[in-house]
């Protein structure tokens, strides 16, 4: 990938995060953190691009590369679809040594053709990985030729793993949509309450905890980039009246581009926690009214929020006394750290520390606001350090992703999954009760007394 393209991706003069920075920092944009060989963890740019686009559920997603890129990763996330299942099929060119020597362009074209003939998808997304990038396959040209000859949009996603982190991959995915997809389809009808949601992947169906609320306000999700998405919807995203960015850092560049090119205003919000959900709904309503939606939308939103908040607190009632004062260590790369903190604080829990691996300065300020100046924020936490803290009983529970799950369990610490693979939906007013239930269930599980007690003979050894 050209160095220029990458620099452009990181230039975000209009982004709130960047504007808050001093000038010398602003010029740098948000460059990816440097990776340390032998002490690195985390996914690559290809991974990030796939996460962002794969929930376009009716499209075919074809990975151009040797087997590992798709073979070791396909069908592992829990992004749900209300209809099409094509996105769960793993397509790859599965490059062999011969392809590496001869170049993979012909193979790629044949693969695209086979996918189109077999599935007749509305579009094919083609992901470039390290090897074809290194041998110089012209994926863009192959995609352009395929689009023309096969009559199906074939979209190149140029995010080979070695260009950087998962986060960068998210952005490059947004870039591909901007360049090839958004603006290519016009909606049949439009309303003043059409919104675009960016960065909500519908993991475990979290989007579906929000859409009923929006429906009651007459708000239509014109497109979601991308959760339970359809290709045509994404292609008509440019007709949205407002954008909500859910996972701020990853895809804010796309929201900014849409604002610049189509004049769609955006805001960053979260659906984790009662207060955050209400705030997001209010901001969405306000923004839409500013854009020409009927002013009565504000009152409607206020009524809905009042009603839903009351019900949400009612649902939480049985859990609150049991969760009050429990200490949480939050170690998440995916869910926005501050929004999760605010949700946990609403449950009366004490967040003793949080990771800020993907957070911006602005995010960190919000964390300080929420947790106070003593807030402990850390980046990558070495497994050894995590082990020590959990063994010392510094936290009553760890909220993290699968990668640290077994570190927690080996120290006999309760654990709840808050990452991509999670099987419970925690969004909105209903999701909050799910979160409380899961944490409660983990904390008060009957195994803890059993597994923590020493073996009888070990006790006897100590007391002769």
């Amino acid at each position, binding site marked *: 990938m050209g160095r220029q393209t990458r620099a452009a991706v990181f230039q975000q003069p209009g982004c709130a995060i960047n504007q808050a920075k001093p000038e010398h920092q602003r010029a740098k944009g948000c460059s990816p953190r440097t990776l340390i060989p032998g002490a690195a963890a985390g996914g690559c740019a290809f991974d990030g691009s796939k996460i962002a686009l794969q929930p376009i559920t009716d499209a075919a997603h074809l990975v151009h590369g*040797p087997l590992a890129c798709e*073979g070791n990763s*396909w069908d592992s996330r829990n992004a749900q679809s209300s209809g099409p299942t094509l996105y769960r099929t793993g397509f790859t060119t599965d490059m062999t040594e011969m*392809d590496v020597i001869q170049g993979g362009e012909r193979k790629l074209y044949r693969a695209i053709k086979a996918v189109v003939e077999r599935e007749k998808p509305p579009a094919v997304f083609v992901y470039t990985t*390290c*090897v074809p990038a290194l041998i110089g396959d012209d994926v863009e040209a192959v995609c352009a030729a395929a689009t023309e000859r096969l009559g199906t949009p074939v979209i190149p996603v140029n995010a080979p*793993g070695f260009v*950087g982190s998962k986060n960068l991959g998210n952005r490059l995915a947004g870039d591909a949509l901007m360049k090839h997809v958004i603006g290519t389809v016009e909606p049949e009808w439009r309303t003043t309450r059409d919104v675009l949601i960016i960065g909500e992947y519908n993991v475990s169906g979290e989007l579906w905890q929000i859409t009923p609320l929006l429906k009651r306000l007459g708000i239509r999700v014109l497109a979601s980039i991308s959760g339970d998405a359809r290709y045509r919807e994404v292609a008509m995203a440019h007709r949205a009246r407002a954008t909500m960015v859910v996972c701020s850092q990853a895809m804010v560049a796309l929201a900014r581009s849409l604002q610049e090119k189509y004049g769609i205003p955006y805001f960053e919000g979260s659906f984790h926690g009662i207060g955050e959900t209400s705030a997001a709904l209010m901001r969405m309503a306000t923004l839409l009214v500013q854009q020409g939606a009927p002013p009565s939308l504000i009152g409607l939103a206020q009524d809905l929020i009042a009603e839903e908040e009351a019900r949400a607190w009612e649902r939480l009632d049985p859990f609150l006394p049991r969760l009050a004062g429990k200490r949480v260590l939050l170690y998440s790369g995916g869910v926005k750290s501050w929004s999760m903190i605010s949700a946990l604080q609403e449950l009366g829990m004490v967040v003793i520390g949080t990771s800020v691996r993907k957070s911006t300065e602005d995010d960190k300020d919000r964390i300080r606001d929420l947790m106070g100046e003593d807030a402990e924020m850390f980046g990558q936490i070495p497994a050894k350090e995590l082990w020590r803290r959990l*063994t010392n009983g510094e936290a009553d529970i760890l909220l993290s992703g699968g990668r640290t799950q077994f570190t927690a369990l080996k120290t006999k610490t309760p654990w709840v999954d808050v990452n991509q693979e999670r099987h419970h939906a925690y969004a909105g007013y209903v999701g909050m009760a799910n979160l409380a239930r899961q944490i409660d269930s983990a904390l008060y599980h009957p195994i803890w007394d059993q597994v923590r007690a020493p073996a009888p003979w070990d006790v006897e050894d100590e007391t002769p």
Partner: protein
Amino acid sequence: MTRISGNGKAVTVNPARSSAPLGGAMAFLGVDRCLPLFHGSQGCTAFALVLMVRHFREAIPLQTTAMGELNAILGGAENVEEAICNIRDRAAPRLIGICSTALTETRGEDAFGDLKMMRERHPEWAGMNLVLASTPDYTGGLQDGWAKAVEAMIAALVPDGPADQSPIQVNILPGSHLTPGDVEELRETVAAFGLDPIVLPDLSGSLDGHVPVEYVPTTLGGTPVDDIPHMRASAVTLAIGEQMRPAAELLERRTGVPFQVFDRLTGLKPVDTFLTALSGISGRPVPARFRRQRSQLIDAMLDGHFYFAGQHIAIAADPDLLLALSGFLADMGCTIQAAVSTTSSPALERVPTDTVVIGDLDDLEQAADGCDLIVAHSHGRQAAQRTGIPLYRVGFPVFDRLGVANRVSIGYRGTRDLIFRVGNILIEGHDGHEGPSHGNEERAHDGIVDAPLAAD
């Protein structure tokens, strides 16, 4: 002989294969105080790591040289060097097992030469073993990477030339198709003959699921590094699975230790053969407990054979696992209707079916029409859902079932338990009726088929 064919498709759909570097890393994970390292972009490591964490339900030590765009073009020797320094500082492993990836192999680095020069620059690395396995993702699959890592360990750590042989010491080279539970069973079986086994690699020590007392940044348990050179003093090498033949041959070439390859240890006759061999090596009769277990297996075969008879199976697995399981299922009276494998191997020629397709899970799904059971790893769940055919999960990855690492399918006991596990699925498949089935045709008349049992 079985026909082996490709799938002739222009695109791989729903991959069945896991990558070679992942297999290499898994083999290194069977060595004590080891830290495997992928020489590639950080994504290569992240994907393999997450998959192994989900499969074994364990924290997995695995590192990356974190190749960036510039390194990929200019060369990654510096990254390897830096990675080794960092790993040494943080984890102090006895062995770093390096697996190359497609990215670094495409550039054509002389990693072996680079490593040699690094060692000269770093005298402080002296006590730390570095083993390099060439495992480009574009060649072969998990079991090939596993085999290459074992060969690399033998080449690097076993000295050339014969040694004073110990008549009771034997080398065991288990293939990637054995679970940690299988390896434990294997070692105990060999030890029961009074033999002293060196198992390489030994996942039963490292990935058997145990709760350590303190944090360890490397593997904890597995083959002790210091045991590996002693493999040259063994009386014999027992290789389990065709994939381990080259490693056994290498060991013989270097040290003169003869070897025997066992296709499979699942099924009555294969286990008979294996125990007979152990009896021959040790000069001891087969211990009484195995005679008892043999009788239990025979009883299980008698009890279970109704349910397997005439059942049509669609199976996808790496070659050695494919051979072991399809051989077992055929022994029990099943028909292997569809067999898909991931990489070429002489083992495929012995799979009891007409044709083995080297292909993907889409090939399996297309050919599974009318089958009673799909046997595949967890990714087979999509095919199972779409076809309505029950799935028995085997191999790697199995991320949606508990206890896969401890499951034993070898030896008399393991085969017996396998009959129970698969047999129960087949019973369940017939609407939970307990009556013996007599193949597809009669299934519509379950009530009638039930009658003989009722009359018993």
